[in-house]
């Protein structure tokens, strides 16, 4: 319950309040605001033409394309998974449910470098399928499929994590009502379930996409760093930076920073809607069941 500090009888003395605010603002400025500004400042340091050239240069465009392709495959896959897992977990009772939920969170706990490593162990030259892939002249590691796989892994939980708690809070009554009224499985899903989860779903997709575009460690391991072919935007940034081509590196980085800002904006907008959904769920299912 937030109450106006001016009105509450128990508030810190003004000096302490201002002091704490100053500390918090200083901390945030130092650690968050300055790096953000640095990205854009350095990107534009040499002027607009250099900036524009950096992001339209063929290798940069290829990196952008590859980032979008990987994201475009990873997000729908994890979206379908998120919906399926949320339906199974939130609409049914079965043993081991909590184990399943914890397992879904695993990719969050794993270092991104390890996320890349595991696919190298399976599909790399010395991996389980290495010789087989070699024989059929099909490359996964150091090629696009590997990048897609690593991206899928690191963004695995995002949609499911947004949907599961909401659908659990909403309960099964509306779906049951639809069933008794004669609706079939897909009809129930399309007309009743989806509209009720649309904001959380959208938010989960945005988070998933933003993370997919920005993933560095995992993709770095499986990529092979071949300019123009197996570099995503973050990897391209690294290459430019290591060549001391700072303006170009920050130019490409600024695009990614913009994506991050869009994500933050979306969060702000959707947060209220999602909170409303939770409040409505609590209200209708609330009382004794």
């Amino acid at each position: 319950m937030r109450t106006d500090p001016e009105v509450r009888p128990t508030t810190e003395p003004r000096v302490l309040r201002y002091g704490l605010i100053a500390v918090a603002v200083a901390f945030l400025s130092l650690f968050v605001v300055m790096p953000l500004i640095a990205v854009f400042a350095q990107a534009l340091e040499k002027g607009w033409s250099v900036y524009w050239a950096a992001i339209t240069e063929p290798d940069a465009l290829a990196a952008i394309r590859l980032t979008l392709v990987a994201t475009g495959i990873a997000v729908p896959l994890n979206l379908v998974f998120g919906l399926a897992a949320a339906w199974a977990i939130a609409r049914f009772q079965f043993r081991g449910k909590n184990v399943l939920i914890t397992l879904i969170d695993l990719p969050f706990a794993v270092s991104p470098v390890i996320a890349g490593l595991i696919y190298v162990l399976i599909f790399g030259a010395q991996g389980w399928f290495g010789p087989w892939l070699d024989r059929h002249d099909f490359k996964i590691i150091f090629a696009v499929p590997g990048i897609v796989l690593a991206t899928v892994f690191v963004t695995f939980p995002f949609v499911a994590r947004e949907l599961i708690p909401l659908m659990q809070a909403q309960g099964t009554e509306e779906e049951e009502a639809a069933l008794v009224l004669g609706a079939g499985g897909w009809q129930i899903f399309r007309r009743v379930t989806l509209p009720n989860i649309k904001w959380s779903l959208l938010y989960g997709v945005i988070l998933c996409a933003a993370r997919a575009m920005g993933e560095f460690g995992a993709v770095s391991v499986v990529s092979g760093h071949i300019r123009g072919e197996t570099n995503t935007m973050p990897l391209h940034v690294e290459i430019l930076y290591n060549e001391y081509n700072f303006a170009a590196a920050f130019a490409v980085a600024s695009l990614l920073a913009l994506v991050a800002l869009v994500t933050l904006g979306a969060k702000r907008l959707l947060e209220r809607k999602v909170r409303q959904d939770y409040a409505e769920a609590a209200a209708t299912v609330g009382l004794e069941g």
Partner: protein
Amino acid sequence: MPNQGFRRASILPGFWPTFGFSILYLSLIVLVPLSAVFLKTATSSWSHFWGAIASPGVVASYRLSFGASLAAAAVNAVFGLVVAWVLVRYRFPGKRLADALVDLPFALPTAVAGIALTSLYTENGWIGRWLAPFGIRVAFTRLGVFVALVFIGLPFVVRSVQPVLEDVDPQLEEAAASLGAGRWLTFVRVVFPILRPALLTGFAMAFARALGEYGSVIFISGNMPMRTEITPLLIVTRLEQYDYTGATAIALVMLVASFALLLTINLLEWRSRRYAEAA
């Protein structure tokens, strides 16, 4: 018709397709690949394994990764608490912006954060130039690693403490005040115990994230052997040298630590939920 056993019968359709697909997808993308780490290590001899994970360079990296992550998480615990407090309880211009920006380290790609932080803290950087006269060097030192880990752990404590702080019953503090307690005492005895579980959870999450962090750190660390190499970097260098066994061995150590942390975090969250329900 069986009532218990695996699952309770339900009339909603679609259990087996969704459950089956989820398990299949989870196994193919997450479980089987992760198992590769364990299986690969099983094939190497113990001495080989020990050599891979206990060589001096690797141990130095453990010390750095662990130490810097712990320190960074601790700093985030303190300042994150202040930030959460200020955001929940006070009003000031730009508060909504500040609240939104707290999530930036979580949303910003790690490579972008890495090069931004490096450029700030080099000797000519906006911050680095103020510290240089004092002999304080951040970029390419362990201090730089620490700074980067503070950055990426920032949101965890704030977002963990905020909801709990928002739900603190103002009547508790009013009661303490009416009984004669000053603000500091009220905070220490009444409010902080309520926040402690969430603070611990946030701390653990920041710590876990810092341990595995790669992109934000490798630019600013300088990657000097025995000095500023973090453990994830060692995995990458082993891979680049095609030493898969070595890489996997180190990865196993990291995985065990991550899973232990994940379990701890889940336990902490479970306990804090029980505390909240009892209250």
